[in-house]
């Protein structure tokens, strides 16, 4: 369009405006609303004011549009999602910081639901098992109100949280701390180092998403819980239950909510954090296996010793009394003893009664009942017991019978049997009846030889067993025979000295043996000669000739055979008249 072809209405408008007509027409048309129109015009030109005005209407208008169906939510949704995605891509931290206080409780709830389900599963699994320990846990579950699974898990825990640090995330400065005891370590340095380690790990592994959750240091573990502005670090020892991390999370969230401003604007002033004394105290926890109460060992040992000693003393006394009673019974049954009374005084036992001096002494009996003699005193009066054993003892002591005599007692009668010499028998007959308890004495005795007589008999026997043999037609003693001859002489002399009986004297018959074979008379003569020769030898040796008698004996008359040409001897006691 050219300038010549301009709209004629435009020209009119310019003319009217230049002449003030248009303004007049406007005033006529709008009338009283002119002021409002001016304000509206101004509002439209002022973007801020207009936006504020619109913002009041928009929610209502939006609702009405949705209700009327003119705006569909499905069409808005992708737009919002796309916007959110874009925002998260550009700065995910902002959104995570915003969502942190909201998300964590939701996550926690979900996790706690999972744990509950897990515990239910554990419950059902464990319910199938049985052992004494599990039975005890089940009882504990009933009384404590906890589930069985919780009880089982709790028995696995032994832990304590020694220190908790609240660290400002950006600066690594310690904001607050709590200790299990009053022995705090250099917490500022630890916090800073922890922060440095965290930075180092996250930087080194180029991991923006993963957080350093725990550091293991020998027996200790450092549990780290990170929030957007602050970190909680707990130095723990032992087997810490996982729900402790939940406590850390809750505490950290609480701190982020309560100290949001202070954390955002932290300039190194920790006063506000330190004023809250309870800030971290709930994170200091410890749980130990239910241990048996520590017992006062020393006191127990002392009590045991005292009780033991007392018990032992009682036992000893009871045993002693028992032994004493047994002893008294046994002693009372002893022949020659009558116990009339017993009692105990000042730890000493006293026994009263009667005792025959010949009865057994109580010492051995006390020993057999483990009683010390010094603890038992006997107040026994002597008496003559009429018990058969004591009467026998008494008789034995009084009569002093030789070993060949046997004494027996029955019904007041003493029976004496055996061999004894005349004198003893004679004396016994006088004294036996005088012994208390013996009314009658019956003897079945024979006289016995004395020891001297016994010896004499032995010597006679030895002489009579001596044989001297001579060679044919010879009479001499060999060296060995000479020794036997000397012995013979010695024995014979001793016999001659011994008077067995005053009425008789010993005679030595020298038997010279010979045989009847051949010339018996000649043999007899030779034998006679041999006997005489031997007697001569004996006379020479000092024997008196009057007590020796030669005798020829023929072998044939002998019961036992003796060598021919031998000499033997026989001792005979003859009255001197018969010599």
């Amino acid at each position: 369009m050219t300038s010549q072809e301009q709209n004629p209405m435009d020209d009119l408008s310019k003319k009217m405006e230049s002449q003030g007509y248009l303004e007049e027409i406007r005033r006529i048309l709008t009338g009283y609303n002119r002021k409002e129109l001016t304000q509206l015009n101004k509002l439209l030109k002022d973007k801020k004011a207009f936006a504020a005005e619109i913002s009041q209407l928009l929610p209502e208008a939006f609702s009405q549009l949705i209700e009327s169906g003119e705006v569909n939510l499905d069409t808005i949704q992708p737009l919002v999602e796309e916007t959110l995605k874009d925002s998260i891509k550009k700065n995910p931290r902002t959104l995570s910081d915003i969502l942190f206080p909201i998300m964590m409780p939701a996550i926690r709830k979900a996790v706690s639901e999972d744990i509950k389900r897990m515990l239910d599963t554990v419950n059902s699994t464990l319910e199938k098992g049985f052992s004494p320990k599990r039975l005890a846990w089940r009882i504990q579950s009933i009384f404590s109100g906890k589930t069985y699974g919780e009880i089982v898990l709790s028995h696995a825990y032994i832990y304590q949280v020694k220190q908790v640090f609240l660290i400002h995330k950006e600066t690594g400065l310690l904001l607050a701390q709590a200790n299990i005891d009053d022995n705090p370590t250099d917490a500022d340095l630890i916090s800073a180092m922890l922060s440095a380690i965290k930075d180092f790990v996250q930087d080194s592994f180029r991991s923006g998403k993963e957080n350093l959750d725990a550091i293991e240091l020998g027996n200790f573990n450092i549990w780290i819980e990170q929030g957007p502005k602050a970190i909680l670090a707990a130095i723990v020892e032992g087997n810490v239950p996982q729900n402790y991390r939940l406590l850390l999370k809750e505490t950290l969230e609480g701190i982020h909510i309560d100290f949001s401003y202070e954390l955002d604007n932290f300039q190194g002033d920790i006063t506000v954090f330190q004023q809250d004394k309870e800030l971290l105290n709930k994170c200091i926890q410890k749980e130990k296996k239910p241990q048996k109460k520590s017992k006062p060992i020393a006191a127990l040992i002392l009590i045991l010793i005292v009780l033991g000693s007392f018990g032992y003393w009682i036992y000893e006394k009871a045993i002693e009394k028992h032994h004493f009673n047994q002893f008294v019974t046994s002693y009372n049954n002893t022949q020659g003893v009558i116990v009339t009374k017993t009692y105990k005084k000042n730890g000493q036992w006293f026994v009263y009664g009667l005792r025959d001096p010949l009865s057994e002494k109580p010492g051995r009996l006390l020993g057999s009942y483990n009683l010390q003699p010094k603890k038992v005193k006997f107040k026994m009066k002597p008496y003559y017991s009429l018990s058969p054993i004591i009467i026998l003892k008494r008789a034995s002591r009084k009569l002093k019978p030789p070993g060949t005599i046997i004494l027996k007692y029955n019904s007041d009668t003493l029976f004496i049997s055996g061999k004894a010499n005349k004198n003893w028998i004679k004396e016994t007959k006088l004294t036996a009846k005088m012994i208390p308890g013996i009314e009658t004495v019956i003897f079945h005795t024979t006289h016995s030889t004395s020891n001297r007589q016994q010896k004499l008999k032995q010597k006679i026997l030895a002489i009579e067993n001596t044989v001297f043999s001579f060679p044919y037609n010879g009479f001499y003693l060999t060296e060995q025979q000479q020794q036997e001859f000397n012995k013979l002489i010695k024995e014979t002399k001793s016999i001659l000295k011994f008077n067995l009986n005053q009425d008789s004297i010993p005679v030595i018959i020298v038997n010279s043996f010979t045989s009847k074979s051949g010339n018996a008379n000649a043999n007899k003569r030779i034998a006679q000669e041999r006997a005489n020769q031997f007697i001569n030898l004996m006379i020479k040796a000092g024997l008196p000739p009057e007590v020796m008698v030669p005798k020829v004996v023929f072998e044939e008359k002998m019961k036992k055979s003796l060598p021919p040409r031998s000499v033997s001897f026989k001792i005979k006691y003859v009255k001197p008249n018969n010599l």
Partner: protein
Amino acid sequence: MIKKKITMLGAFAVGKTSLVQRFVRSIFSEKYHTTIGVKIDQKIVQIDHQDVNLLLWDIHGEDEFQKVKPAYVMGSAGFFIVMDGTRKNTMNIGLDLLAMAQKVAGNVPFIILINKSDLKNDWEITDSDINNLTNKGYSVILTSAKDNIEVEKAFLTLAKKLLN
């Protein structure tokens, strides 16, 4: 109680650890121990009648093999850039670290320490270099951890800056 994180930055072997040890423990060792990672010390100082706990992050020295992790610098209330007067290249490294620290920690106070002033005759960093730094508005203090020259002053100056 006010706590402040101060980071020691600089090339390797410029004396960061020695400066911290001199300030915190008043000791100096001729033996050189390279810092691996981070060593943290603290000292409570009094600034304007107020106790301030300085947490000193002694970061390992930077060289071509080992770059300082920015994460260590994050949250610093202030920092030192330590240079070795006898090695000029430590100035360049220091200035690079300064740029990194300002990027990470933001506009926080810092002081440039040119260390080993006891070896002034062997210095490669010239007065002109120092003037260039001060002309940029940087605070520069010449220190000697060995002879305990200006060490305390440096830390107290930065602490004061932190509180202001």
